[in-house]
């Protein structure tokens, strides 16, 4: 893809998100002048960028929006609610056109009509009084926007402007000169003013054949080109080059724009991979120190000191790269508010959507992978959770549904929750449907706790909608959401109260470059288990393990937990120790214990995706290279226990 376009797709969307955020601020407080200024700048910059692409309707629409915002800034009149709604609709339209540009290389065929309608809506709500654009002399209102454009160009030009001041010879009319025609012929003219040389004479004493004015203008063309336009009257013109007034335009949120460098994500990924390898190689030093201790304690001492230094520096480097890779979730999630509005409109359900904490930073890989699952959960909430306005009123709730997306950080996890105040999920109904659809048998369904029954919606192919709508019924069910979150080594929690609403909580690790593993031994082999899959490790007397049904189980804190023997499972010899070492994990919302022979060290490693034969093995998350060069098989416990 063309580099300019790639850049625009990123920046354009950022500006859309910014405009949207400022509009949100303005709707909370219409007198927020800072928000109005920031909105104006976002719209202005956006207008400049869309001009470079096949987005004529966007340009026209933004132009009009900018004019009106410019006027609002000047006259200080707050934007009305209707105006804010219209501007939001404009921003949504721009956002959609950017999507279309990315997919098709141009805006859709209906763009011009949409733009026209939105422009008409913008014009319709023009405040009647106090408008700075209202021409004092009763000129038609089409002149207003032009002056706004000139102001904006002056304030925010990206390039040098050439100013000229042309003082025509008072007798030039006799020679057949028309200084105005000359000035209008200046290339890339962006502003022009006609000023009286002295105060205008009274009309009674007016001399129509004397030129009594001078012309001042601005051009974005190079100085030489402007000078060339005045080549016949060089002695009557003065020029000045004006540098862009950056201070005025750029000192808002992006004030540090000049210090921000955009880096291709792939280069960052490769840097992160190298750092991970370095962490692994550093792990190898520990091994070398242990070897040296046996043969040469003095050398070992030196090595240990070195190892400490390298560990510390590597740790810093690792944290630094992790931090660089972290991006605010705001960018990948910025399309959500618009999509939620569109979906709600399509379903004819009034919904107030709020998003909080989108400034939370997570690893880029996680940020990129979160959009789809989140959209699906939101879609589900709108489709199945929130009721129609009449249903809500009948239930004594406000007609407008509430849907909240909350993002926050808890120690080294990101917690993302989607909650609605809709109908909630009825576990009894889920059980009945699951049985009717052969997802589980009646006995198993009855044995499920309510919390476990809620997880039935994550079962492949499970859909409880009375009718399949075109929204949620796309064959991508909640099971896909659950899988996507598991791939990110995250967890999905579901809470629901019938009649009151539901809450979906996603918990994800903050960083994903290296994974902290617990090394365990089983059947004479060593395996790695990602620490974030481990709820706890524990030791129990082997004799407290009892056969239950076809398998074995033990009682942990008054709850029966099924036990899987890792050595058994992987074809090794089952341990005979009197003490059973257990790793407790969560699989499908239930605790499962994995019995191992021994616990070993914890290490930070880069887990590589399983390839070739390994890929076909269930329960293998990948491989890791150990410091001593050995390859460790990394297990995926929930999959293994399923």
């Amino acid at each position, binding site marked *: 893809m063309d580099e300019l376009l790639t850049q625009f797709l990123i920046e354009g969307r950022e500006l859309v998100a910014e405009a949207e955020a400022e509009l949100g601020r303005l709707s909370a407080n219409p007198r927020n002048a800072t928000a109005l200024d920031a909105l104006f700048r976002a719209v202005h910059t956006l207008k400049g960028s869309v001009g470079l692409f096949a987005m004529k309707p966007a340009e026209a629409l933004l132009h009009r929006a900018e004019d009106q915002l410019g006027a609002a800034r000047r006259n200080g009149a707050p934007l009305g609610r209707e105006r804010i709604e219209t501007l939001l609709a404009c921003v949504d339209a721009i956002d959609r056109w950017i999507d279309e540009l990315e997919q098709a290389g141009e805006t859709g065929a209906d763009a011009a009509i949409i733009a026209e309608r939105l422009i008409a809506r913008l014009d319709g709500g023009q405040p009647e009084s106090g408008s700075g654009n209202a021409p004092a*002399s009763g*000129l038609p209102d089409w002149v207003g926007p032009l002056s706004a454009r000139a102001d904006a160009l002056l304030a925010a030009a990206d390039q040098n402007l050439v100013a000229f001041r042309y003082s025509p010879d008072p007798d030039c009319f006799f020679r057949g000169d028309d200084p105005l025609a000359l000035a*209008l012929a200046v290339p890339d003219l962006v502003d022009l003013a006609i000023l009286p040389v002295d105060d205008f004479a009274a009309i009674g004493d007016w001399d*129509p054949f004397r030129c009594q004015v001078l012309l001042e203008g601005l051009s974005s063309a190079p100085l030489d080109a402007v000078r060339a336009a005045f080549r016949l009257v060089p002695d009557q013109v003065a020029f000045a080059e004006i540098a862009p007034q950056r201070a005025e335009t750029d000192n808002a949120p992006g004030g540090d724009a000049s210090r921000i460098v955009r880096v291709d994500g792939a280069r960052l990924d490769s840097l992160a991979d190298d750092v991970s390898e370095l962490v692994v190689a550093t792990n190898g030093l520990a091994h070398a120190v242990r070897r040296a201790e046996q043969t040469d304690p003095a050398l070992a001492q030196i090595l240990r000191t070195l190892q400490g230094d390298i560990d510390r520096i590597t740790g810093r480097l690792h944290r630094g790269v992790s931090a660089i890779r972290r991006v605010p979730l705001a960018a990948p999630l910025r399309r959500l508010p618009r999509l939620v509005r569109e979906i709600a409109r399509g379903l004819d359900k009034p919904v107030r959507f709020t998003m909080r904490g989108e400034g939370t930073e997570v690893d880029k890989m996680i940020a990129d992978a979160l959009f789809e699952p989140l959209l699906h959960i939101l879609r589900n909430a709108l489709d199945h959770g929130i009721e129609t306005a009449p249903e809500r009123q009948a239930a004594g709730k406000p007609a407008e549904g509430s849907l909240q997306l909350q993002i926050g950080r808890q120690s080294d996890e990101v917690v993302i929750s989607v909650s609605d105040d809709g109908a909630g999920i009825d576990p009894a109904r889920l059980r009945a449907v699951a049985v009717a659809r052969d997802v589980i048998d009646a006995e198993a369904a009855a044995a499920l706790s309510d919390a476990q029954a809620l997880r039935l919606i994550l079962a492949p192919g499970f859909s409880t909608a009375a009718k399949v709508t075109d929204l949620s019924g796309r064959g991508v069910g909640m099971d896909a959401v659950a899988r996507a979150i598991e791939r990110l080594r995250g967890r999905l929690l579901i809470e629901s109260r019938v009649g009151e609403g539901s809450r979906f909580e996603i918990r994800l690790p903050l960083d994903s470059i290296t994974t902290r593993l617990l090394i365990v031994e089983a059947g004479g082999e060593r395996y790695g288990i990602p620490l974030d899959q481990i709820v706890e490790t524990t030791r129990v007397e082997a004799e407290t393990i009892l056969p239950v049904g076809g398998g074995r189980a033990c009682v942990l804190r008054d709850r029966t937990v099924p036990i899987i023997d890792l050595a058994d499972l992987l074809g090794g010899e089952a341990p005979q120790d009197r003490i059973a070492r257990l790793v407790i994990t969560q699989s499908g919302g239930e605790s499962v214990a994995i019995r191992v022979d021994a616990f070993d060290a914890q290490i930070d490693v880069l887990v590589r995706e399983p390839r070739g034969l390994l890929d076909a093995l269930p329960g293998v998350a990948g491989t890791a290279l150990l410091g001593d060069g050995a390859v460790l098989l990394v297990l995926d416990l929930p999959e293994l226990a399923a």
Partner: protein
Amino acid sequence: MSVIVTGDVIALVGACLVEDAEPLLVALQADPTRSVDVAEATRLHLAVVQLLLAARPTLTGVPADPVLRDLVLPLMRHVNR
């Protein structure tokens, strides 16, 4: 003939050149409350424009010519304010 006076309205029609400034001045001096209709104008010479700037009559009509409409007429507003 570019300056046409009809009662209270002075219409500027077609290309208004330097020689049209005088009839316009006469018309405005005779009745300063006359408005000036620029709908049919295609070009305005600076001699005409500076007179309109000084006399500040009410301007009516939207000229079709883009340069006139988008660049020249807005200029009058700057001084009028």
